[in-house]
Structure formats: C-alpha cells, structure tokens
C-alpha cells in the first residue's frame, strides 16, 4: 500500500472501467487478492477475480478519468496491514491510510493516489527486550515491550508462523519500527525482526486454542450488562432503523467498556460522527484508569462518501487490528458501524461484476462472508500463553427497520447477542431503545460465575425476576388497551407500576447525562435490588388490601425513578437509603391503611 517498501511492476493494462470495478488484461502470474496499483496515479486496488489473462480489480479510490490502455502494476502482496507500535490513538481509512497524513498532503478534501506509510517510520520507541540470545521462539512469542501509550504496553511479537532460535537481540533502548531488534535463525535461514510486521487483512491471525467466553464485557449500560450481557470474546448485533440509537450505543461501549483496547470502525457512516469521536475521546477519561480514552483506541473511518471498495475492506482492517492486540493478551472490543453498509458495498461490487444475485440483490456469498467476519471474534489462548479476546459489536441498518431482511437475518445466525432497537421506544425518547422483549443474549449462563465472583450471586435471579415482570407487563398492556387500567385488579396494576419503574428508572439510560451515562456493576445491582424490593413490599401491602393509588403517591417512588441520575457510581449507600425509605413508607402504609 505504500511505495517505499517494494517496487511495483507493470502486470497488464486496463480494458474496462465501471465505477470501482476495473478489468485489465495481462500477466497470468498475478494472485487472487493481490494488491495492485492502477493508472498513472497508482490508485490502490485488489484483484477480486481472475479468468485466463483477464483480472478483475476493485479499486479503493475514485476511478474518474481512468481509461482503457492505462497500466496496472502488481505488488506481489495481498492487502495487508502494518502492525507495530503507533497504532493506538490513530485514525485510518479503510485500507489503513492515516487520515491526518492525508490531510497534511491533500488538505480538507481527500485526494487520490496519495501514498503514505500507515505507521510513522521516524518515531523512536523505548524497547525493553524480554528474550535473550539462544531463546527458542515461535510466532506470537513476545520479544519485548514498548510503552505505546501510558495505558497500553505494546508487546512486540514474533510474526505468526515463524519459529527458530534468536541469534541476536537488541539491547534496551530507543528504536524505530524499522530498526532491527532481533535476529531469528530458522530452518530456512536467518531473518531480521523489527517491531513491525505485516499481516493480510482477510486472513484470521492464528492462536493456540479457542477458549469459551466466561467474563462479562462490562459496558456500564444497564440494559446490556444486567439484561443482555455480552461476554468478552463474544459477538453482538445491534439492529435498528435510522435514528434508533445504534451509533450512540456503540459510542457508549467504546467509551465505557472495560476492554483494554477499542477498535472503532465507522463503515459507510457519517463524517461528523467520526469527528465527534476524534474530538471527544481525547477529553474523556477512562473510568478505571483515569487516562484519556484515546490512549486505548484506534479509529477506522471510511465514511459513506468515501470509496465503497475501501468500505468493504474497512471491516477486515478493523478486525485484524483487534486480533493483533488480542495476540498480546488483551481484551479487545471492536465496533463496526454499520455492517449493513459493508454488505451493501459487497452488493455494489457484485452488481458491477454482474454476478447472479441472491436475496435482495445481495450476492449468494453474503452469509459466508458474515460468518467469516463474526468467527474472528473469540477468546483465545495466545502463542505467548496469555489469554486475549476479540469481542465484536456490529450495528445492522435494516431497510425500513424491518428485521426480516437478509443482513439482519444472517447476522442473527452468527452472533449470540441480539440487541434489537425499537423505533417506538426511540420516538418516545426511551434510550437506549433496546426492546427488552425482542432482545436476547446467549451468554447469560456463561457470565453467571463472573457475577458471582464479583459478589453478586443474586444477579441471575434478579434479572430473571425483572424480565418476568416486564414480560407480564406487556401481556397486561394488551388488556389495558382494551379496557383501561382501572379494570385490572390492584396486584396486576402493581405489576404495571413496577414495570414502569424498571423502564423509566433502570432500563432508560441517558448517554448525555454525566452521572447516568455509565453505571458500574455495584450501582446496577443496587438499583435493581431497590426496585424489586419496592415490588416485594408493595405486593404485600396490596395483598392486604391497600389501594394501588396510595402507592403511586408515595414520595419514595420519585426517588426510585430518579436515582439513576441522582446517585453517582460509588454512592450505593444512597440507594440503600432509598430502599430504607421504601421500608419506612411501606411500614407507614401498613399502619395507616391496614
């Protein structure tokens, strides 16, 4: 992708151009998925089809002006990333071109044919070796460490699949990513290693062993953590119509989740949303470390108006970066907003190739590609015997908000968490608009022990009870819509009331509110206990004949719905005080009315 590390040689000439798809005739030695450069500006592209001497190329830049007869150059390499220190805090386009460098080169608007290396070559990094001459190492072994950001230690690894004995190791000191830091004697000969290596984006990075997910990916979002938890190494889908809250939810997870590293891929979405992250993250601090969030974040921005082929690649770029940090033993969370735009890029390219369409114009291989992508999530034992994980959270933008369309349906098959966003909730400004009846998580059983280990053995039951109340409510609401709430007996009206408390006081969470934006587990559980405690007490007094209206008017109700924004993390005693007030007021009701 950059012209400094290899020499492109002429392999053919263009014979046909249609948008991002170009056909060329020439050498039969070109490999499928090889990166090529097209025309005098050396526009970057990738071989996506070969038939005799005709190659089909998807071009990652605008093809305006390209004409038959112009040259195509080969690079001999598949689309690959540069992996090494300097990735964190960066923002790249879909094929790992650093956007700030593009801005320096071509100004406000992204020009074509700008060549630059993804990682800055001149920066010196403080390298501390962890190995010695004579050590036997293999792909994934840690050679040494670099403080990449104050938050993340970069573990420099032997590139995957190499094994051998170290014949030389650089002493502790400052090196650039192209300086040699070790020499490896392999069966095939000796090889110099640097802090950087390349890896093709479409090939999953190897690991030693796949492990079952067992830990919660803590997001601080109550409806997620408490009701529909995602495990580290799991995959979740957020489908929803426009404006339902996919992006805000993904931003919230990027901000507050307890992943070590966050990869955020803006895939075919708005420019301003990436700018927002770029301007906001350096100012926000991680609630656990107190460091700016940007220190653990990499952004990939291939916005809707950027070339569609690079949009197709952006998802793979993102997940490859995620695997790279996983291999160092980190828990990585990757967000892709939106996978539907990626699927549409596939469709657009497929259409220009005149392939046989399957459902709704999508190519028949849509499902296979989606599966391949989500399969790259997982918790693994790395080749340096650490545990790392990649969690994937994919937004889905179904046309018309209708989940029966192919991308949503296939995504559902390959993810185990389904956070269904609901238009009606969103228009009532109930956010996150995650529908508690339609959503599910298959990780509930996997994370029970995690909750227990945190000291919340009652999580499973609290959750089940709350969900049951909400389900019961939805059933009762159908009756209410026919006869009005007054027709229900008071114990059933109490269910409506508690469900209302759960919805307003617990499920709803305002991302814009400083206190409410993030709730730690302690607060989540305390809130849930308080609301369910209210229910239990209320059930008794109602059972004894106290009219429900009396409960509506209890002053503590107002405190319960407001505690999400009035009680900060670390102040659970205030929630306990509210529970105490529940008891006092219920006691009083009992003496007054019964």
């Amino acid at each position: 992708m950059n012209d400094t590390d290899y020499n492109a040689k002429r392999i053919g000439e263009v014979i046909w151009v249609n948008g991002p798809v170009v056909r060329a005739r020439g050498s039969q030695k070109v490999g499928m998925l090889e990166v090529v450069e097209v025309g005098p500006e050396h526009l970057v592209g990738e071989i996506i089809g070969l038939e005799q001497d005709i190659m089909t190329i998807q071009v990652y830049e605008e093809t305006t002006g390209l004409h038959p007869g112009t040259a195509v150059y080969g690079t001999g390499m598949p689309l690959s990333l540069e992996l090494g220190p300097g990735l964190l805090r960066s923002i790249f386009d879909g094929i790992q071109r650093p956007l700030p460098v593009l801005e320096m080169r071509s100004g406000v608007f992204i020009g074509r044919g700008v060549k630059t290396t993804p990682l800055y070559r001149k920066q010196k990094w403080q390298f501390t070796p962890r190995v010695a001459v004579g050590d036997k190492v293999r792909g994934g072994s840690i050679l040494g460490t670099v403080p990449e950001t104050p938050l993340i230690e970069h573990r420099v690894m032997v590139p995957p699949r190499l094994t051998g004995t170290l014949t030389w190791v650089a002493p502790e000191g400052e090196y650039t990513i192209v300086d040699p830091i070790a020499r490896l004697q392999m069966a095939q000969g000796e090889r110099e290693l640097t802090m950087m290596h390349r890896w093709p984006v479409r090939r999953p990075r190897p690991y030693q062993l796949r492990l079952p997910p067992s830990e919660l990916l803590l997001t601080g979002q109550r409806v997620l953590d408490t009701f529909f938890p995602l495990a580290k190494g799991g995959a979740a889908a957020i489908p929803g119509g426009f404006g339902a809250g996919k992006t805000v939810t993904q931003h919230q997870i990027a901000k507050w989740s307890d992943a070590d590293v966050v990869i955020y891929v803006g895939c075919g979405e708005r420019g301003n949303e990436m700018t927002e992250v770029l301007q906001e993250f350096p100012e926000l601090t991680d609630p656990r470390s107190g460091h700016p969030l940007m220190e653990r974040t990499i952004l990939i921005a291939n916005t809707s108006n950027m070339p569609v082929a690079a949009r197709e690649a952006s998802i793979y770029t993102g997940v490859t970066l995620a695997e790279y940090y996983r291999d160092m033993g980190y828990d990585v969370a990757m967000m892709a907003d939106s996978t539907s735009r990626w699927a549409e890029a596939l469709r657009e390219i497929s259409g220009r190739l005149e392939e046989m369409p399957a459902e709704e114009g999508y190519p028949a291989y849509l499902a296979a590609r989606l599966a391949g992508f989500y399969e790259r999530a997982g918790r693994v034992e790395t080749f340096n015997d650490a545990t790392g994980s990649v969690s994937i959270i994919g937004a889905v933008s179904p046309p018309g908000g209708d989940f029966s369309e192919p991308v949503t349906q296939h995504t559902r098959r390959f993810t185990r968490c389904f956070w269904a966003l609901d238009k009606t909730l969103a228009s009532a400004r109930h956010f996150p608009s995650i529908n508690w009846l339609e959503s599910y998580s298959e990780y509930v059983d996997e994370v029970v022990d995690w909750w227990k280990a945190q000291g919340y053995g009652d999580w499973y039951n609290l959750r089940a009870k709350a969900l049951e109340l909400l389900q019961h409510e939805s059933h009762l609401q159908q009756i209410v819509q026919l006869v009005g709430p007054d027709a229900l007996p008071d114990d059933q009206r109490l269910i409506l009331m508690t469900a209302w408390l759960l919805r307003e006081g617990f499920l709803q969470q305002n991302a814009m509110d400083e206190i409410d934006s993030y709730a730690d587990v302690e607060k989540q559980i305390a809130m849930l206990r308080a609301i369910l405690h209210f229910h239990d007490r209320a059930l008794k007094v109602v059972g004894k004949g106290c009219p429900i209206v009396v409960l509506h008017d209890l002053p503590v109700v107002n405190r319960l719905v407001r505690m999400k924004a009035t009680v900060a993390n670390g102040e659970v005693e205030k929630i306990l005080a509210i529970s105490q007030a529940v008891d006092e007021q219920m006691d009083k009701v009992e003496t007054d009315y019964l």
Partner: protein
Amino acid sequence: MTEKMNAHSIGGQEVTGATRIEGPLLVIENVSGVGYDEVVEVIDQRGRVRRGRVLEVGEGMAVVEVFAGTTGLTIEDTTVRFLGHSMGIPVSVEMLGRVFDGLGTPIDGGPEPLAEHWADVNGQPINPTARVYPRDPIQTGVSAIDGMNTLVLGQKLPIFSGSGLPHDQLAAQIVRQAALPETHRRAEGGADSNEFAIVFAALGVKHDVAEFFRNSFADSGALARVAMFLNLADDPPIEQLITPRAALALAEYLAFEKDYHVLVVLTDMTNYCEALRQISNIRGEVPSRKGYPGYLYSDLAGLYERTGRVKGSKGSITQLPILTMPNDDITHPVPDLTGYITEGQIVLSRTLFQQGIYPPISVLPSLSRLMKDSIGAGQTREDHAHLSAQLYAAYAHVQEVRSLASVIGEEELTTVDRAYLTYGRAFEREFVGQAKDENRTIEETLNIGWRVLSILPRNELTRVREDEIEKYYGKKN
C-alpha cells in the same frame, strides 16, 4: 479546493456515429483512451450541442449518458466529442443573485459569471479529521424545530413530506427566519454579510414551486444572496443528476474558500432518486429495493455529506433537502436511505395538516442528531435537553391514551390520562402550531413548552430535573 481534472484521457477526440441509442444512453465504439466519468458534448445532425458524461468504458467502447436525453439523435449523424475531463462548473461569488439551469448555465439573461475557480461537480470526500464538529444552534423561529429538533450550523436536516403538504412554506419560513448563531454573526473575509447565503436547487419541481421560492426570497430581500439552479418539471430529468452537484460545488466554494455560511435547499430529492433509478434500470443493473439501484445510499451520501464545517474556514454548509415520501411511507427507500445518511429529519404529518395545524410537524418521528451537543447552558438554556425529552415522552404517552380513549371512551380515563389528552391538544396547537410568519425566540419556545407541560401533574414529569420543575413549572411567563 484543488482542481480535480484528472485528464489522463486524451481529450478532444471526436467520433461520429453511435452503435446503440437507448433511453438517455448512447453506446459509442471505435474510440480509445476515453476516461471513466469524462464529460462529452453530443452534437446532433443540425449542429446543436447537448452535454453528457461517460458511465462505462471498455476496449474501444464507451457508454455515454446524455443529460438532455437522446430525442432526435440518430445512429449515423450523432457526433460525440470527448472533453478529457470530468464534469465541472465555474464558480464565483458573483453567482449569488443569479439563476442557472440544471447544469449551471445562466438562464436569467445576464452574462456568464466570471469564473474565480473551476470546480468538479462531484467534489471530493471531506477528510473526517479536517471537519469541525458542528455545535452552534441556528434559531429558526419554529418551535417544533428549535425546541425539539434543533437545527445546527453545518447540519444536514431534511424535511420528509408528502404531496400537498406545506413543506415549501416551511422551508421558505426557515430560510427567511434562520438567524446565524451569535458567535458567527460577524463572519470575516469574503462574507461580510451577517446572513446566510442561499443555494437553491430545484429538482424536477413545478414552475410555481420555483416561483414560490423566488418570491419568498424576493419578499425578504434575500434575492441578492441567493443562487438558484433550476431543473423544472419540463426539463430533462437526467440533468437532475448534475443539478444538486453543481449547486453543492458552488456552496463548497462559497463556504470553504470564501467563508460564507451557506444554506442549501434541495427540492425534491425524490425526483432526483427517480432519475437515478431510471438510468439504472435502462442499464439493466441488479436492483435492490423497489427498483432503485444498490448504490442509491452511496450516491445520496455523496451529496448529503457535502455539508458541515471544516478547519481553516469560517464558513459552513447547512443542508435542508426536501423530499416527498411516496404514499406518505417513511419506509420507502428514498426517505429510508436519506434518514440513514442525514443528521436527523423533520417529518410532516398529514393528520396534523388536516387539523389545520401549521407547521404540521410530527415530532415523534422527527429528530435532530446534532442537537445533543448544541443546546444547554451557554448555547440555548440549561433546561433545554430535559424539557425536550419530557415533551417527547409525554407526547408519546398521549398517543397511547388517545388509542385507549378511542376504545373505552374519554370519560373512562383516569384523571391523569385526561390531563394527557389536554396536554396533547395544547402541545399540538400552541407549541407546534404557529403562524407562517411567526418568528419565536428560543426562550419563547422553551417557555411555551413549560406552559403546556404544566397541564400535567408535576410528579408525571420524570425527565426534567426537580430544580428545573421548581424554576419553570406552572410559572407565568
């Protein structure tokens, strides 16, 4: 903006005779070195010139789209001249106050404006790192917008309407009343005006619609700062594929080179999409939904993303596209894909319109995504976010109560629910409803909001803070 005339193609080459003519498309053979997306001149047997561009090139072959259509062109006598560059227009500040056709040629009888710069109509994507995140609210004087769907300087906020609804009136009112945020009032550089420059593009709308806007600009004395690009109902529809791009090329020049704050009105985007669909169908492309091409999203994004603010420039582009939803269906591909790209939408409702409420803005499906960072203390007022959320939540409940009331009757409702009905009516008539020339300050809007909220019992108000209730609830303002 750098010139993007990527002429590796030879240019100037001329070929007489077409191989095939189909709809607006010409297939030309025996050419070489024709560039993808290159502009052409098509000359008929009487020497008249039409413009077009290259949609596909192969060995010795090119597919050309003729903007004005192919009527009257013959296989034998049609000459195509390849110009060797992509579609561009000359742009300059003097274009304000002028009227152009859909391809940017003046049609007001005035001289060709002096080009200060040659701009590629397709523009280039703005680098996200070069953007400035918009956070300055524009006061439009319309409560349903300012109070609940605040328009922000540099935002793209479309109006989703239906045929016969007063979207033109609303857009004209917004254009007339839109006041630059305090902080931007004294723009320096080329733009010494305290007001917006307006770029208006008509896409296949009727003459009277264009005339209505013209008169409205004239009445408010804005004409001298308006550039109009007109492709009207009887103009060739394929031209519409260029019209918004030409308009935006001028907007970009004014905003990012000359520091103007530009308000772009595009109407009707549904016609634009129709033109795109037509070309796609003729080319036999695999359709996605309802016959629209799979790249409709990317194509629209290529227009809508040409909005915003960028580093190093004091200007901005704010887009107010108008589209009519076929059958009032918001899930139709045109509004649907638009909503996925724009930063919110203002939705008009036929029901409110029939009840005589103007502007008939249906607030529940409406949204301004940039509002969250653009309101509050220092920008509008500290209670704005909560008030707006409360108005929304309460009005959403009104819908449930109304449907319940229609089953069990109003008398059977609880007192609280009856209060919701009263609130619903007051909200629609007093908050949403206003006169076509009524220009409310944000303060007034927020106060009306509190006034109608005060119809509800205070403990129903869980989205506003208690100190805000203390300060504003039930207060005479």
